């Protein structure tokens, strides 16, 4: 046996492969250069984002036009420009704020879903599953019971706090010498059940009117909501933009298993925690604005990934996909059974549930073992 030092010198280093002249273009990346600034872009993602933006605009205009009274897009444009007109009330006051809120809520859910799913390395985990929705519901119900608020929608901060609290509880309970994603999810499911039992308890004891109101809020609905609810959500989204930009880079190595990521120098636990916190804040704020709406956070990132065909869950695309889904669902909720309004949360559950089952059945090619 010859050791490395005994081998003839010309054979110690293998010949270097010549660099691929078509990279980065062949990998689907483009470089945007402008003076000293350069940005590496995934071409397909950029195209998808552009298309989704157009699609979102289209769905929003459609939603503003369609309803019990059909308003032509031209009229919608007039109202948006502030020129008033006969449809100012219906379009400007009722439909548009609701649509904008829907887009924001959908974006927040899409983003939080992408973050949580990447951290837990599990395409089936989403903030709804780890107890955010149930926590928000339980906190709201408690606030109602103790008289702190007069109605479920009066103080969104309560719902936000509840959602955060529940997620924190789940994290703490599931943490045991480190975080195991499957433990996280299972504990979340269990805590969710307990919290919904608390809500049930309240419902069976409260006065009829109060119970009806809470039940309505629990299913998640955009009816009657608008700028008031959209504002805090918009602020949170704006403020979290820098964090999201950082997250975009931080997400990539988290797609690998923890050991490899740690070997690459990533502070795995800290990054996981920070991303989860960001995701939960976004989901909790969205829940505070419109009540718990399920399955958007679950489905949007997966759909987005299929569209962009990237190995990791794309943030911007997830946000846009979430927006499109929610605005479309709200349109359906408004128009399917007039004059009754189906709570949009029921529709998303009805459609999202089978999708989740399909996902579970291995409908995606890159499923990791759960």
């Amino acid at each position, binding site marked *: 046996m010859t050791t490395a030092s005994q081998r003839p010198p010309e054979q110690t280093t293998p010949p270097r492969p010549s660099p691929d002249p078509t990279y980065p273009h062949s990998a689907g990346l483009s470089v945007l250069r402008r003076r000293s600034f350069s940005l590496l872009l995934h071409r397909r993602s950029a195209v998808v984002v552009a298309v989704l933006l157009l699609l979102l605009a289209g769905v929003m205009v459609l939603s503003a036009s369609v309803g019990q009274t059909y308003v032509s897009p031209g009229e919608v444009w007039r109202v948006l420009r502030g020129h008033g007109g006969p449809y100012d009330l219906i379009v400007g006051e009722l439909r548009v704020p609701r649509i904008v809120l829907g887009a924001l809520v959908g974006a927040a859910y899409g983003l939080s879903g992408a973050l949580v799913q990447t951290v837990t390395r599990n395409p089936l985990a989403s903030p709804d599953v780890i107890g955010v929705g149930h926590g928000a519901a339980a906190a709201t119900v408690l606030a109602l019971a103790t008289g702190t608020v007069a109605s479920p929608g009066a103080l969104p901060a309560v719902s936000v706090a509840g959602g955060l609290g529940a997620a924190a509880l789940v994290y703490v309970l599931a943490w045991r010498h480190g975080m195991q994603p499957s433990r996280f*999810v*299972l504990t979340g499911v269990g805590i969710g059940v307990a919290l919904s039992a608390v809500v049930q308890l309240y419902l069976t004891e409260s006065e009829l009117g109060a119970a009806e109101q809470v039940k309505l809020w629990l299913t998640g609905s955009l009816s009657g909501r608008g700028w008031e609810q959209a504002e805090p959500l918009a602020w949170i989204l704006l403020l979290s933009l820098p964090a999201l930009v950082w997250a975009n880079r931080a997400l990539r190595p988290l797609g690998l298993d923890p050991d490899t990521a740690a070997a690459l120098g990533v502070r795995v636990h800290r990054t996981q925690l920070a991303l989860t916190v960001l995701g939960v804040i976004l989901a909790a704020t969205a829940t505070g604005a419109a009540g718990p709406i399920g399955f958007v956070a679950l489905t949007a990132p997966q759909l987005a990934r299929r569209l962009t065909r990237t190995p990791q869950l794309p943030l911007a695309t997830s946000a846009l996909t979430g927006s499109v889904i929610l605005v479309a669902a709200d349109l359906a909720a408004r128009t399917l059974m007039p004059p009754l309004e189906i709570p949009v949360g029921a529709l998303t559950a009805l459609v999202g549930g089978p999708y989740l089952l399909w996902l579970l059945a291995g409908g995606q090619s890159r499923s990791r073992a759960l």
Partner: protein
Amino acid sequence: MTTRTTTTRTATVRTSRTSVRAFWLAAALLLTLVAVALSLAVGTRQVPLSAVLDALLHGGGSRDALVVRSLRLPRTAVGLTAGAALGVAGAALQAVTRNPLADPGILGLSQGAAAGVVFAITGGLANGFGGYVWFAFLGAVVAACLVYAVASRGRGGASPVKLALAGTALSAMVGGATTVVLTSSSATLDQFRFWQVGALSGRDAGTVGQMLPFLVAGALLVLGCARGLDALALGDDTARALGHKVQLVRVCAALGATVLTAAAVAAAGPIAFIGLAVPHLARRLVAGGHRWTLPLSALLGAALLLAADVAGRVVRAPAEVPAGVMTALVGVPVLVVLVRRKGAAS
């Protein structure tokens, strides 16, 4: 010489193990009897035990006697049978899926049964237990097939997480569908709400009689597979090598569990967590095969459900908290502890 001593020692160990198991079985029976007594005596009105016995044996028309005979007796009977059914179903499901976190509620069977009942109520197809139970059974079977088929595909097979998530997805779907249906047809809302609360009140003596055939059928199916379930725990290949027909055992036990769940849900509404906690306790007490843990699960399940029902009657007197809510509140800490145990989640 040594062989004879070893044989005698093994025989002694075996006998003492059996006597320990028999002891626990007897203890569980006693516990169940205590729970029954409590269920008859305690509630929004306290009836002393002597009065209970008097009412049962000698009749009598006092208010207490009326309550005991016409309200508490059927309620206790339904609680006994539903609790036993859920306990056995949980044990069977845990063995079939080799998953310590299986439970008819978590896996979505109860929700499937609930969906069946909603369907029956909406279509005006059934009324009362006798009608509900068939639709509940249908719904539970569909749910079981769906959840299991979905969760066992893909890498990793039917892991606890996938099963739990499949169950969650199913219950969310059922919830969504129910909301949509009930938004449009509030006439069914009343009937559904009455049933949905997961309460044992308002169930009459006839219900128990109607439940019994299903219980017996389900119990026989599951008990008949007891040895097969023991072998399953060793792994499919080992079980096959031992001569068991793995698929048959699986299907039989799952079918039995579904029948039991459907009967329990149709009678008492969706009640969660009894099937989760009870088999674990049973396995801890009686470290033996399913021939021991199944009956023990039945007894403990009955005791637990009755205890939850009694607690629900006492906590908010004169109003009552549905037993389903109480079991959820109690069961979740159990779930959390189980999940934290090493290896339980994977």
